[in-house]
């Protein structure tokens, strides 16, 4: 693992909610840790356990899957599937002796810039403790 990869956080962001919330955080000039890398997806339901595990394989210290609030997913249940997969992935991580809390499902609306920043900061804090 090269320098600087140790505490990267990969945030899979649904283009209808989290990606927009991140944009808003930018417009509001709310600073959050530099080590976040946002990957845009059409729906949180697109994110698979494989993608999350690969992130950890490549040295990510935390993974966030961020989608719409429950009941507000344009694809009805995409965010619920994502929630299940995150739970599943957390158990897969536990099986290999890693902390399942490193992967987290987040629900927010497109205007929730503050929440975006807060969850990112929380994850950054959490992985620092390890």
């Amino acid at each position, binding site marked *: 693992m090269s320098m600087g990869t140790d505490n990267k956080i990969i945030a899979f962001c649904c283009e209808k909610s989290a990606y927009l919330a991140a944009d808003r955080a930018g417009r509001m000039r709310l600073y959050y840790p*530099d080590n976040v890398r946002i990957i845009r997806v059409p729906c949180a339901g697109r994110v698979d356990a494989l993608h999350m595990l690969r992130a950890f394989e490549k040295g990510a210290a935390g993974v966030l899957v961020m989608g719409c609030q429950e009941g507000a997913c344009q*694809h009805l249940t995409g965010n619920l599937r994502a929630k299940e997969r995150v739970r599943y992935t957390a158990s897969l991580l536990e099986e290999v002796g890693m902390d399942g809390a490193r992967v987290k499902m987040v629900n927010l609306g497109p205007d929730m810039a503050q929440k975006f920043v807060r969850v990112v900061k929380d994850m950054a804090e959490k992985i620092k403790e390890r």
Partner: protein
Amino acid sequence: MGIFLCDCGGSLKNIDFPKISGDLEKLEDVAFIDISHSLCLEEGEKAITSRILSENINRVVIAACSAELREHKFVRLLEELRFNPSLLSLANIREQCSWTCEGDVTEKATELIRMAIGKARLLQPVERKNVPVNREVLVLGGGFAGMKSALELSRLGIRTTIVERKSTLGGKLKEVEGFYGLETSLKQMLDSMITAIEKDNNIEVLTSAEVTRVRGEVGDFDITIGGGRREFSLSFGAIIFATGYRTEILPQDFELKPGGNIISQLDLVEMLRAPEKLKRRPETIGFVLDVCDENSRLPTLSSLNNVLAVREKLGSEVYVFCKNLKVDSEGAEELYREARNRGVVFLKFDEPPQIYREDGRVTIKAKDVLLGEEVVLLCDLLVAEERALPPEGTKGLSSMLNIGTDSQGFYQDENVHLYPAASARKGVLFVGGCRGNLDLGRALTDIASAVMGSYSLLALGEAVVEVEKVRVDPEKCRACLTCIRACPHGAIQLLRVNTEKEVAQISDLACDGCGVCAAVCPAKAINFEGYSDEQILAEVETIGG
């Protein structure tokens, strides 16, 4: 590949663009790296245009502001230049980097651009094509919402067929007395609508008819309609559900069975039509509302209307027991105030009132929240609140069309906040009472949405699709049905491909691009161009250095 970096008019000062350019130049497959001040303005467009026309590149990476803002613009530009827009990869170095980063912004920007480059390498062109769509719309239900939708669509030049289960059009308009404050009588409204429909060449009406089978997708729904002994198939581009609602006094709301002096709103309306026929004028009338928290606005509105009608026509004393009177519909607040001004007494309860019959009258006992005391009312007539429920046949229709219903059984909206009249399936829309919580004002808005929605889908007689953007590989598909069950838009079917085995097939037009199918497929047979596993992993793996 060609890389364009935008420094947003020179404002992204914390990014060292020349350094990034220097780093990326070393990559083998990069043809050029241009730094621009404003890719979104004419100057930027000219730069992109000249590069694309002169250089031999097959991928474009643009690092600029949010994809949300500019993606459409770049896509359109590339289309004009005949460069397949699916070969474009974007990096957000403004809102999600320069504006929120405190440390080494250049390093973060570089990595974000590398992620976009990694993805770009794997992008494949997706053809855009026009497919013909059927311009006709099926309107299910000939009540107010259904008739109005058909009339509006006709004005836009779209032909519709109204399929009505009963023998005449009208729905609830035939049953309700009126809306207090509405100038036209409902009967007049109904008559004029029916006349307009009869005269309209764009509208065909089939009464005593029901839909028995639905196949196909948006643009080409194959509908089987049965009426009497006949059965025939018709093709439509879109379906608008206007199946309305029904009202009922549910036994769990009122322990006492209706009858005698406990009546429904409908009964009251009947009574008010001919008050002179009453043997004895009821002196005190009690209304009990909000026994069920989840109830729709429609019963509340009709109650308020009826309360005023009672005062006007019968002059009886009226007491209304309610919990949370839902007056957020247009005009409802005025109705409430008018009622109070006319002497109607509203009592607010928390615990449902006790109701029992006594000496030929009805007793209502409830604790008034404001007074803090128990109030006992003896009344001659109790008008019970009805629940608005989904019409009969909703379950059958919804499973026939593979659309969901919500917790109360009404049709489920695609997204209650953003697309209220649309269902999860493209081309299937809902209007009016069948959506649940509704009133006249909202119904009119729904109708407008649905009409515009179906018009924009079908008006041109053709629709643009991205051909096989999400594609099932028939070799790998095991027909396990997982994707078919998982697709929220009903866009996947099991079909025989080239007379070989049955595999899942995704409809380009009905697909909404969520990628859930690609994620669930256990055989990894579904390729979602632009967000394939390989493409997403390419972004993920970039962080490994």
